[in-house]
């Protein structure tokens, strides 16, 4: 255990400073006493003489102590710890700088940590599975089309002899309805998967068994394995469900097992069905899309496995050049999401550069503040230098002070980053991508923490070393010329640039805030034209035949079944006492609607106008309680395909018809949002009625939309939604809707149920998040600019104390003194405001070019918003000038006698 005692001694010597010092003292004392006693005993000297001789033989006690201290390797440590202590003292001595600088640095580090963590999550190659780093995915990339190819079934069938990949398997997503113990059908995120999955991601099933190869054979009895959460929620955690036949999608399957909690292989799945891969007659690049996975064989590497797969692809390519000539195969770590051959390393470097640049910009400002502080301590620095401190020692001290600030900021930044990732990042990703892959870990990883700490050190170098080097330049000359109260350090052009840039950003940011805020307000104030809170939007899909079916009659049959089932459900809902009405539509109000171009046939050379369209059930306007204003509503014969009638809304009347009654007019309608190449070939439709505006404009649209309704043709679409009007809060009828849907057709999949006034809440949440982020950035930028201006002015006044005093003594007026002080900051503020305005103008120009704002034909901001911004710019000038008040007052209070005495 000698290594242990050695290590213990090292630690004790390094960190147990007091204990080590007292040990040295005691050993020296003991040594001297023993030698004194020997001299008394053997040479019979007097006590005084014996002590003197003992000390003389021992040599310089203090010198020995120093040697021992050096031996502990703590000399530098002592110096550094002293600097760090001073750094902490500085935090409390300059609370304003601590708060402003710390906040800015924390923001930079926060941003860096979030980006590193997100990058780490998305680029991680580690799977929390046995040999997780050797689990591979086979991906194909079409080099000509520049897109991924997932139809690998044919190739998969040729992989059988692969030696570098074992436990080869495949899966595909298969969202299906599963009817739970309560008899209700609810969609489940399921995977059709081969039994190899349970060898790649082995886990002992909680109940029953996982798949075996026999489950995949043609003619095998349909089976299903349930995930833990689904089993708990839908089957009340009943272990007896194993062996029972349950309804899955359009058919039945026997539950053979329940997987343990947290099991979600291959991605974020909660139920598993066997995948049959030996489909006969599959063509190259044919069949259904699959994802192929496996484990690298011992000795194999990703490169060797890739080479082997490529040789298979080449072999297939010789027989089928038309499909395989341009295919490139990749064998990559399982977590890699894309086959796009871009360099991961380059991305990592770019991420680092981006974060470092951000921290550099932020810390550049903090450097300005620390420079001002250091400049105000110029005398102290000169004295230290006079006492023998080297330039490096002084720079080291100022760096240590910045390091302490950066360290505290790093703790704050990392803590808030963890909070933001778990509270905002995760919900955001789940909102956009549904359930997240099981390996996504939002807890800050050691790599993120180390990276953030490196950013902090980098920030400290910028904020500490740069100003320190500037302030210590030519110390020797200044030492000779030093005079109390007056310094010779001046702010250079770089600092001025930094301040100007910050003011510009501070002016420009609120424009973004205003824009986002006005957008949110507009979204919230959306006018549906009916009481949206009384309605529930229910998106309905249907489980169909296997995806490998290419039979068009089967597909048509599925569409017909969907159409009749959704209509049956609508009728059943209408019969419910708590439901006032139910109708069917292809797009829910306030959400995006399909855009088309229309042209009035009855008016010669009429221009084409963009309209928003919806296909509706004949009951639509009744259920929305919006009677037809003129003409008639749709009837059941309009729904027969081939009937070419449409109903328009008041927006159409005002925008397209110029207020004239449109009933009886005919329009040509393009098939897409663009005008067709041969518009005269388009069939015309007759306008048969007019209704009020009923939320056909997308929530993001800034102007009124012209709305046009088609009658919904049964069997034409499989992406419809029900709109259910409740007599009570519609959210209370959700369970009943599920019950009825299961009763009508268990394969009807209710994908989403939202109260209509909350249809776009998720998008609003995102805008809200943006608003908060932008506002925080603006706040920090504002704070930094003001502090920068304040510190520069304070320093300028302090430096010019003598000059101001002499001027006042010579009779200069207060106005003259103020002008001379204000000239520089005023120039900076004005330059900053001009820069900010230019940024806004550029932003507005850019906005104008985007699709969303192009219809406006003017800048993205309204006149009142522009006026608001001008007022804000004036306010900014005022606030910046306020920052000058304290130093100016200080300057004016300078008495000539004091100024001269200061010399």
């Amino acid at each position: 255990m000698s290594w242990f005692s050695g290590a213990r001694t090292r630690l004790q010597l390094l960190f147990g400073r007091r204990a080590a010092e007292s040990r040295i003292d005691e050993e020296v004392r003991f040594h001297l006493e023993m030698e004194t006693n020997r001299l008394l005993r053997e040479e019979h000297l007097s006590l005084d003489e014996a002590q003197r001789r003992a000390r003389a033989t021992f040599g310089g006690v203090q010198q020995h102590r120093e040697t021992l201290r050096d031996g502990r390797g703590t000399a530098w440590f002592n110096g550094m710890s002293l600097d760090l202590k001073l750094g902490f003292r500085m935090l409390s001595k300059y609370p304003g700088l601590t708060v402003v600088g710390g906040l800015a640095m924390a923001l930079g580090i926060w941003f860096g940590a979030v980006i590193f963590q997100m990058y780490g999550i998305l680029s991680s190659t580690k799977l929390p599975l046995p040999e997780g780093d050797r689990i591979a995915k086979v991906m194909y990339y079409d080099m000509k089309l520049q897109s991924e190819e997932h139809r690998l079934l044919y190739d998969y069938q040729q992989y059988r002899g692969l030696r570098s990949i074992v436990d080869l398997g495949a899966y595909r997503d298969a969202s299906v309805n599963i009817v739970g113990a309560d008899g209700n059908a609810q969609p489940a995120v399921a995977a059709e998967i081969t039994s190899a999955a349970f060898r790649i991601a082995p886990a002992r099933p909680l109940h029953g068994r996982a798949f075996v190869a026999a489950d995949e054979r043609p003619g095998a009895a349909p089976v299903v394995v349930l995930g833990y959460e689904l089993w708990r929620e839908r089957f009340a955690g009943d272990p007896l469900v194993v062996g029972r036949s349950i309804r899955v999608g359009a058919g039945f399957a026997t539950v053979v097992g329940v997987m343990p909690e947290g099991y979600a292989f291959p991605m974020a799945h909660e139920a598993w069905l066997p995948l049959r891969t030996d489909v006969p007659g599959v063509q190259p690049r044919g069949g259904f899309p699959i994802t192929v996975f496996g484990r690298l064989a011992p000795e194999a590497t990703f490169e060797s496995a890739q080479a082997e797969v490529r040789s298979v692809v080449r072999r297939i390519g010789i027989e089928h050049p038309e499909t395989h000539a341009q295919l490139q195969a990749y064998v990559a770590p399982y977590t890699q999401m894309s086959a796009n051959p871009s360099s991961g390393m380059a991305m990592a470097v770019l991420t680092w550069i981006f974060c470092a640049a951000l921290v550099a910009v932020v810390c550049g400002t903090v450097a300005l503040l620390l420079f001002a502080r250091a400049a105000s301590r110029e005398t102290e620095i000169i004295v230290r230098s006079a006492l023998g401190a080297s330039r490096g020692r002084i720079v080291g001290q100022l760096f240590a002070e910045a390091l302490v600030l950066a360290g505290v900021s790093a703790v704050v930044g990392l803590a808030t980053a963890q909070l933001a990732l778990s509270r905002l990042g995760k919900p955001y990703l789940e909102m956009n991508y549904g359930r997240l892959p099981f390996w996504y870990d939002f807890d800050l990883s050691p790599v993120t923490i180390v990276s953030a700490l490196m950013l902090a050190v980098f920030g400290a170098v910028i904020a500490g070393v740069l100003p320190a080097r500037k302030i210590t330049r030519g110390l020797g000359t200044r030492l000779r010329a030093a005079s109390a109260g007056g310094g010779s350090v001046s702010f250079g052009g770089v600092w001025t640039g930094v301040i100007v840039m910050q003011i510009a950003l501070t002016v420009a940011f609120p424009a973004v805030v205003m824009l986002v805020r006005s957008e949110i307000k507009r979204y919230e104030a959306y006018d549906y034209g009916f009481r949206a809170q009384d309605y529930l939007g229910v998106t309905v899909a249907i489980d169909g035949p296997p995806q490998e079916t290419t039979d068009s009659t089967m597909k048509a049959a599925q569409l017909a079944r969907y159409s009749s089932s959704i209509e049956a459900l609508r009728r059943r809902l209408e019969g419910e006492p708590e439901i006032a009405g139910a109708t069917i539509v292809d797009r829910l109000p306030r959400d995006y609607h399909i855009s088309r171009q229309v042209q009035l046939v009855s008016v010669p050379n009429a221009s084409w106008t963009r309209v928003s369209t919806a296909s509706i059930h004949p009951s639509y306007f009744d259920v929305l309680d919006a009677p037809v204003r003129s003409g008639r509503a749709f009837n059941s014969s309009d729904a027969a395909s081939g009937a070419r009638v449409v109903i328009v809304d008041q927006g159409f009347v005002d925008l397209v018809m110029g207020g004239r009654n449109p009933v009886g007019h005919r329009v040509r309608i393009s098939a897409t949002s663009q005008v067709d190449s041969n518009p005269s070939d388009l069939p015309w439709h007759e306008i048969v009625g007019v209704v009020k505006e009923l939320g056909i404009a997308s929530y993001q649209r800034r102007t009124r939309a012209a709305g046009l309704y088609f009658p919904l043709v049964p069997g034409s679409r499989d992406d419809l939604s029900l709109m259910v009007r409740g007599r009570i809060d519609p959210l209370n009828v959700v369970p009943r809707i599920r019950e009825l849907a299961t009763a009508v057709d268990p394969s009807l999949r209710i994908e989403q149920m939202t109260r209509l006034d909350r249809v776009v809440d998720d998008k609003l949440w995102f805008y809200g998040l943006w608003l908060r982020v932008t506002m925080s950035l603006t706040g920090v930028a504002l704070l930094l600019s003001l502090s920068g201006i304040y510190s520069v002015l304070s320093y300028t006044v302090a430096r010019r104390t003598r000059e101001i005093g002499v001027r006042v003594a010579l009779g200069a007026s207060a106005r003259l003194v103020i002008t001379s002080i204000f000239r520089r900051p005023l120039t900076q503020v004005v330059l900053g405001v001009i820069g900010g305005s230019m940024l806004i103008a550029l932003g507005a120009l850019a906005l104008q070019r985007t699709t969303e704002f192009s219809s406006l034909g003017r800048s993205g901001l309204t006149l009142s918003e522009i006026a608001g911004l001008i007022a804000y710019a004036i306010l900014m000038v005022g606030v910046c000038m306020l920052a000058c008040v304290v130093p100016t007052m200080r300057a004016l209070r300078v008495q000539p006698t004091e100024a001269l005495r200061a010399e």
Partner: protein
Amino acid sequence: MTNRPQADVLRGSLDLLVLKTLSLVPMHGYGISHRIQQMSKGILEVNQGSLYPALQRLEKDGLIDSDWEMTENNRRARYYRLTAKGRRALGTELESWKRFATGLDAVLSTT
């Protein structure tokens, strides 16, 4: 010149002497210097300024270990003892020192 005590123990040989002394019995710093002087019959005199840093160095390297103990006179002193690693190091050092001394002797005795 021949009989004058060797005030500065040859650099590098001090560690060996300390290890050798401690291989006999655990001892405090003063005892070690006294014992070296005694064993060398007064020829070698350890510079106190080098002894304690050497002890600190050997302890950091895990060759010796130390603890506070009471002396015969009931006085608290820091006692050093050899560790297993130190014992092994002593063997190696002795071997190499003997080779060095033989070589040195061979050179010096050449006529």
